[in-house]
């Protein structure tokens, strides 16, 4: 039960900057996900919260207590590592019991807690085994078990399910979220997989090159990305980007390039004017907000050619060529043409994103 406050935190490794001026408030009982590509500073941030690395400058608070100089053992945290980090010479039971042993808990209580945790994670029958005899998923459960046996102030997860196979990963996403809700413990979860962030987190902090890009709910991040990086990183398949220029004819304002001409709505025009956008912009549109039909008489606004189609079972992805650009469209599965055949594309103007081409900042 604790809040975690990260204030003006910087992290340097020698002269290399890993984290730049980071400010995050993690609320009590919140599931916060630090999301970003590798090398974005998310793991460094987590390790500073755990106390495994020094903070170059800035402060981290647990509740009202400044923990910069508190060693990990006194921070009351529990961490799950990417590579599990089980004690290979100890059984599953001993692995789970270890944190309790250091809390000087008596033996009967330890057994009770360990059995409770093991039951929760369905590893009760594995308690006498050594890590070497466990499968990846079982090791991962053991590592989580070691974290939940005591009631820490904060859970720290460092890509805990990154190495599991796809099916088990999707299963564990649900389990972890359920567990966090049930234990009601503040959780900070590091991942590079945007799907994990979207599915599990209350709020997501997207990081890139050591800088916090956006902090918000999954819905916020998905629907209102603050810049091109966030827009491109979150969502699968990723957002399509097209270079355009703004053309004003009388009252109507449109986005134009060699293949498209999109007349913007009144609200969008107003926001363009507010931000006094430059003439050159980048248009972003998610694959779900595009439609595609085959043939020449499609009645859609944009002519394109099929590049490739990727059936996904119920849905399919269609990659289409618009001149030298390429866009991905997601639609219900249907019989589509061969590569090179003409098709038509329409887009939902309401769902359009426009970014400054220089800075990448979102205009809307």
């Amino acid at each position: 039960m604790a809040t975690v406050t990260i204030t003006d935190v910087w992290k340097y490794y020698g002269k290399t900057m890993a984290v730049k001026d980071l400010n995050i408030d993690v609320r009590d009982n919140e599931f916060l996900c630090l999301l970003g590509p590798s090398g974005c500073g998310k793991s460094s941030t987590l390790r500073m919260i755990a106390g495994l690395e020094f903070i170059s400058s800035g402060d981290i608070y647990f509740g009202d207590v400044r923990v910069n100089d508190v060693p990990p053992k006194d921070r009351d945290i529990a961490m799950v590592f990417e590579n599990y980090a089980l004690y290979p010479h100890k059984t599953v039971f001993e692995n789970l019991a270890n944190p309790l042993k250091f809390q000087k808990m008596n033996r009967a209580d330890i057994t009770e807690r360990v059995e409770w945790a093991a039951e929760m994670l369905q590893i009760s029958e594995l308690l006498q085994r050594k890590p070497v005899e466990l499968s990846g998923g079982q090791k991962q459960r053991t590592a989580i078990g070691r974290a939940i046996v005591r009631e820490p102030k904060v859970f720290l997860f460092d890509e805990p399910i990154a190495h599991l196979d796809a099916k088990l990963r999707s299963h564990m996403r649900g389990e972890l979220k359920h567990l966090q809700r049930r234990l009601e413990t503040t959780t900070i979860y590091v991942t590079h997989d945007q799907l994990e962030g979207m599915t599990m987190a209350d709020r997501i902090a997207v990081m890139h090159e050591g800088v916090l890009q956006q902090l918000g709910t999954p819905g916020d991040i998905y629907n209102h990305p603050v810049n091109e990086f966030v827009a491109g990183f979150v969502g699968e398949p990723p957002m399509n980007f097209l270079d355009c220029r703004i053309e004003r004819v009388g009252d109507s304002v449109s986005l134009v390039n060699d293949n498209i001409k999109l007349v913007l709505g009144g609200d969008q025009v107003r926001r363009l004017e507010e931000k006094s956008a430059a003439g050159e912009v980048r248009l972003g549109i998610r694959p779900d907000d595009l439609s595609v039909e085959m043939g020449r008489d499609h009645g859609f606004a944009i002519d394109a050619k099929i590049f490739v189609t990727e059936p996904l079972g119920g849905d399919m992805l269609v990659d289409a060529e618009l001149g030298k650009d390429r866009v991905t469209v997601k639609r219900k599965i249907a019989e589509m043409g061969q590569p090179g055949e003409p098709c038509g594309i329409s887009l939902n103007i309401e769902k359009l994103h426009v970014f400054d081409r220089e800075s990448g900042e979102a205009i809307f």
Partner: protein
Amino acid sequence: MASREIVRYKSPARSAFSVLVILFLIIFFVWTVLPLAIMLITSFKDLLDAFKLPQEGDWGGVGVMFDFTPTGDHYIELFTEKHFGVYMRNSLIASLGSAVVSVFLGSMAAYALSRAEFRGKRDLLFWIISTRMAPVVAVMVPLYVIFRSSGLVGTLPGLILAYTTFNLPFAIWILKGFFDNVPYAIEEAALCDGCNRWQALRMIMPLVAPGVGAFIVLCVLFGWNDFLFASIIGSGGAKTLPVATAELVQPVKIQWGSIMAAGVITTVPMMFLGLLIRRYLVTGLTMGAVRE
């Protein structure tokens, strides 16, 4: 990494080669084991039997060597009249004492050198091993002077210190390699579990047990078999088995039977040590701890 099956394809050259290999192994085996066997047999013979040898080149006459009445006199004499019990205790204390001190100091130094990054670390590592590069004889005289003025000559602590001087660099280098192979995450997990640095080090000690085992064997062997230090620094109060054995060679009479018996009692404990510690030498304990 687990070992793999090696695929072999039959060919005449390979068959011929394997015959040669077996032949070589037989010769090698006889070469290694024969001196030990002769030592063992001779230690149970009286002086007359000991010199009953076949003529040179007379392979049929080898049987003569096994034609004797066994006697335990040499062993009894060593332990009653010649105080070999005391020397054996001295040898044990000196070699084990040095091994324990070296493992204790060495594992801490190795842990620090493995985990911490600091300026001049490579130079320090090289300096540590460079103390082993000079031959022992070269440092013997200054070492003797230092030991004499400290009152350590002829004492067991003196001998332990002398062996430790030479074992410690080895300990640090061997154990550093083993610590390097222990994933940092295991320690970090221990730190998060509520350990301090010391407790975290203790948590990972079982993972470097193969290194400690290997090192203890080397260290004990060095002390146990050492003659030079024992004869100069240990002389008098801290006489060990090799020195005592050498003293059996007297100007008027070389006591072959006793020497062979002394050889046996010097060799046998080390063989048992090897057997005892063998299971710690098997690596692979860290397998499955982390996903590499």
